[in-house]
């Protein structure tokens, strides 16, 4: 057992899986000698060679599109998008091809592809880097969308993604790469998709979050604790598949829920969470379900991002409201 | 067992089509893929083939009907064995079409506005509402015109020459001298375009209504060529087999309503053009010449102009040239 930050956990997982399965091949911009923008592939090209850790031209569409063909040839590619915000340049390949090639080919061509993509804000990047686009991909049938919030989970979920037969968009929280540190077992393990994690127990309000927003929810729970409100924090871990049962159970236990996410409000994945809660736990609710999100405005320039992103303080306001205290 | 054949969705999301023609008759033996009917949808005119080899039991629609997708249009008795599926020795003749005879109307009938009629209604509304018409009426002595025609008829291949191609030739010559008559106007862009091409619409009465096929490049053709092309275009128009480009691109229209017996008409300008020449039937009329009343073959002209582009005197100058060329076609009759 070692304490690792998230990027270390991801790097170690990639290395272990590449050792285990020689069909795995990494592709992306700056992932070779440079070791990746965030060092998630540091040293892997030295270790596995240029044929398996491939520096690609600056073109998201063909990074993902060629992964489709590599998978058709029998390999198991792991393309990296340098930032999910640039994923829009590859969206037609992800949504139209990766996600539905299994269906289009009636399982002749499965797509064991894991698209790794750092995402999310609060790291002072220039424009268009920081958007939380996960809902667009969650609405792309055939794809799974995985959003770990801890180093431990990043290892278990990435291993599960790599060994599975379905294509996965693996969203890695930029802000959590180094900030999030936790105990990661040395041994091999996987975490099944579609099982949420109770990140913090509580009895009055359930805070639902994923990825970097789990940290915000935990901070909000701390603040609420000081006011005598006990908050349970739920980390969804995977958006597709969604743990419908676990979500209904967690919310039913408190009767109140607040969803926290980095994406803008309208049609964010929070809407899906709220609808699911209403469908499956309506009778247990004693207050409307609220959402704490970014506003319906483009991701701003870096000096404005703290005001733009959901904060512990804004989340506390929502917690007070569902408690009828504000 | 009879096979009910439903009108299929032949476009991507077609909801209905207009039945233009049946290619088979009730009782007829058919083979799978033989032509069954012509149908016009919003997107295209298509031939629907027979879905089976066998005999036609019923045709459930009339020419002109609108067929909703999914509705039974014909019923077949499929052939039971390969032996009965042999092709008839001669191609089946299309069923005789009943002549279009109007039946007396005893009560109000609602006739849906469809196909060509609908296009005419829309075009005429646009023409009358947007184009301020001025009309110049004239009479011309057709003696020389008829002589020109008769001279041409003596040549081989020209036996059926009519005056329409000659009038077309005259019109093109007059248009050459008056470019503002061979023009179009765009009010939004505040432009008048004087056309270099002489693409002349030939107003044609067809069983479905007025259709105006366009004779392209009329200035570069001999009267014999014009005659042939007019014949082909008007025949194609009556048979509804014009290509879209044969219906578009006109710069001026000739309307020889004289062939229907008319004397003086009120030609309506086709939107996109600024003038149209109406020609009545040539008739012997008493006329005064040098104080004497004599009988002459006379043709009446009615020329409509778009007052936004043409004034009385500019239109009049054009018409005067037309009249002069009818009365003395030498400048245009000399060639070929």
């Amino acid at each position, binding site marked *: 057992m070692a304490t690792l930050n998230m990027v270390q956990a991801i790097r170690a997982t990639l290395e272990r899986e590449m050792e285990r399965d020689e069909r795995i*091949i990494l592709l992306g911009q700056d992932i070779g000698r440079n070791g990746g923008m965030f060092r998630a592939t540091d040293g892997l090209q030295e270790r596995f060679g240029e*044929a398996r850790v491939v520096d*690609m*031209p600056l*073109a998201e*569409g*063909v990074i*993902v*599109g*060629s*992964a*489709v*063909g*590599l*998978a*058709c*040839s*029998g*390999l198991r590619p792991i393309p990296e998008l340098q930032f999910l915000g640039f994923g829009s340049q590859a969206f*037609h*390949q992800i949504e*139209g*091809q990766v996600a539905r*090639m*299994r*269906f*289009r*080919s*009636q399982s*002749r061509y*499965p797509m064991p592809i894991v698209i790794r993509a750092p995402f999310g804000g609060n790291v002072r990047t220039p424009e268009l880097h920081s958007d939380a686009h996960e809902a667009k991909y969650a609405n792309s049938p*055939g794809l*799974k969308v995985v959003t770990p919030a801890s180093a431990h989970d990043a290892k278990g979920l990435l291993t599960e993604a790599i060994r*599975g*037969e*379905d294509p996965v968009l693996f969203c890695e929280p930029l802000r959590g790469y180094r900030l999030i540190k936790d105990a990661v077992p040395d041994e091999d393990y996987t975490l099944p*998709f*579609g099982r949420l994690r109770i990140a913090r127990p509580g009895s009055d309000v359930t805070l639902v979050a994923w990825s970097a927003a789990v940290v915000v929810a935990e901070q909000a729970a701390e603040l609420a604790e000081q006011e005598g409100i006990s908050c349970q924090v739920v980390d969804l871990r995977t958006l597709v*598949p*969604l743990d*419908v049962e676990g979500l209904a159970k967690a919310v039913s236990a408190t009767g109140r829920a607040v969803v926290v996410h980095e994406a803008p409000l309208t049609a964010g994945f929070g809407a899906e969470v709220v609808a699911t809660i209403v469908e499956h736990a309506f009778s247990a609710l004693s207050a409307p379900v609220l959402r704490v999100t970014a506003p319906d405005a483009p991701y701003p320039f870096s000096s404005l991002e703290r005001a733009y992103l959901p904060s512990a303080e804004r989340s506390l306001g929502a917690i007070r409201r569902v408690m009828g205290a504000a | 067992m009879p096979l009910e054949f*439903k*009108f*299929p*969705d*032949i*476009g*991507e999301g077609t909801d209905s089509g207009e039945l233009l023609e049946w290619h088979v008759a009730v009782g007829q033996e058919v083979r799978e*893929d033989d032509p069954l009917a012509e149908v016009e949808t919003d*997107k*295209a005119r*298509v*031939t*629907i*083939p*027979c*879905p089976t080899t066998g005999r036609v039991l019923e045709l459930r629609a009339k020419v002109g009907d609108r067929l909703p997708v999914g509705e039974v249009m014909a019923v077949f008795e499929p052939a039971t064995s390969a032996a009965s599926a042999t092709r008839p020795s001669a191609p089946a003749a299309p069923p005789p079409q009943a002549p279009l005879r109007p039946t007396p109307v005893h009560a109000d009938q609602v006739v849906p506005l469809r196909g060509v009629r609908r296009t005419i209604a829309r075009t005429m509304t646009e023409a009358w509402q947007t184009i301020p018409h001025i009309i110049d009426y004239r009479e011309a002595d057709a003696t020389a015109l008829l002589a020109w025609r008769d001279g041409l008829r003596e040549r081989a291949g020209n036996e059926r020459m009519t005056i329409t191609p000659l009038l077309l030739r005259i019109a093109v010559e007059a248009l050459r001298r008056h470019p503002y008559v061979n023009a179009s106007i765009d009010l939004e862009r505040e432009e008048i375009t004087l056309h270099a091409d002489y693409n002349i619409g030939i107003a044609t009465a067809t069983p479905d209504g007025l259709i105006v096929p366009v004779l392209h490049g009329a200035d570069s053709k001999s009267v014999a060529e014009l005659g042939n092309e007019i014949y082909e275009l008007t025949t194609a128009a009556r048979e509804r087999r014009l*290509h*879209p*480009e044969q219906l578009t691109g006109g710069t001026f229209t000739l309307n020889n309503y004289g062939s229907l017996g008319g004397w003086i008409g009120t030609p309506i300008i086709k939107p996109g053009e600024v003038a149209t020449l109406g020609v009545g039937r040539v008739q012997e009329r008493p006329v005064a010449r040098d104080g004497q009343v004599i009988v002459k073959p006379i043709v009446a002209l009615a020329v409509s102009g778009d007052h936004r582009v043409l004034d009385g005197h500019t239109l009049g100058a054009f018409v005067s040239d037309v009249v002069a060329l009818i009365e003395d076609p030498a400048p245009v009759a000399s060639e070929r």
Partner: protein
Amino acid sequence: MSILTTSTGGPTPVRILAPDGSVPDGYRPPLPDSELLAAYRLMLMSRRVDERAFNLQRQGRLGVFSPVNGQEASVIGSAFALDPTRDWVVPQYRELPAMLRQGYTLERFLLYCMGDPEGNRMPDGVNLLPIQISLAAQIPHVVGLAWGLRHQGRDSVVCVYFGDGASSEGDFHEACNLAGVRRAPVIFFLQNNRWAISTPVSKQTGADSFATRATGYGFPGELVDGNDFFAVHEATLLAVARARAGEGPTLIESRTYRMGPHNTADDPTRYVDPEELEAYRALDPVARVRSFLLEAELLSEELEHRMRAEIEEELAAAVAAAEARGAGRPEQIFDHVYADPPPRLLDQRDAITGEAQ
């Protein structure tokens, strides 16, 4: 008759087989006679499928269908340069004969046109990717496929078909660029059939040739008369040899002409100049091969008659088999979406198939 060579100016396409079926003195086709006849038979098959499929569509028995009409030499001449046991074809949707050559079946194609997803399932062992409707999206796949096969030590070549329209998509550029970088064994087979539905090639590019683009990607581009079976075939053979030898990709611009509509829902009389169409009819790729074969005394009227009769039978059997499969089952919506489907999707399947029963 030189509309193919003069209408856009620019480079002149390579031509071997003249419109009258003659070839330059001493020219020997690089295929054995049996293969030549097989290619011609596939041309006849393709023409007949075009006709029959149109009728089936007009009878409501088939969905949308895109005929090959006019592009037979382009599609078949190239396909016959590949070795179906190791080389791959990645189609768009107007390359049925190339797919049949690889081992796809007429029955599956009819199923595809009838809207049954089973039709897009390429049989096991047949080197084909599915029919692609999202234009140009298959081109990046091809680079990955060719590179992946080479990575695993195979000497396969991948030939991807697409059109003048698809060449305007970013995927084309990105894929060519990567293929150049990786020297992937790819043949980019661009069928310039002059039309992207109603958009003429003059509105697709400001250049006078697509083949010249290859220079910018660091590999050769060839321009051939796409209605000339031999010119297409020879160019593709050369590209296969280069790719197999590890010399990387080739772009072939096959300048042909779509003589039919874009598909069954299209009415080309709205935009095609009938004179242009007539000019191309004089360059009919099938008639050219026929004249050549008759002249060479490889084909007789009697043999052709026999071919047509066989084709008729094959086609009738395929139609009967495809129609016997019946309408799609609602389960098919769910069957191949995930290897490991989310429980939610299984609930949705039960709800929908339950209602359907």
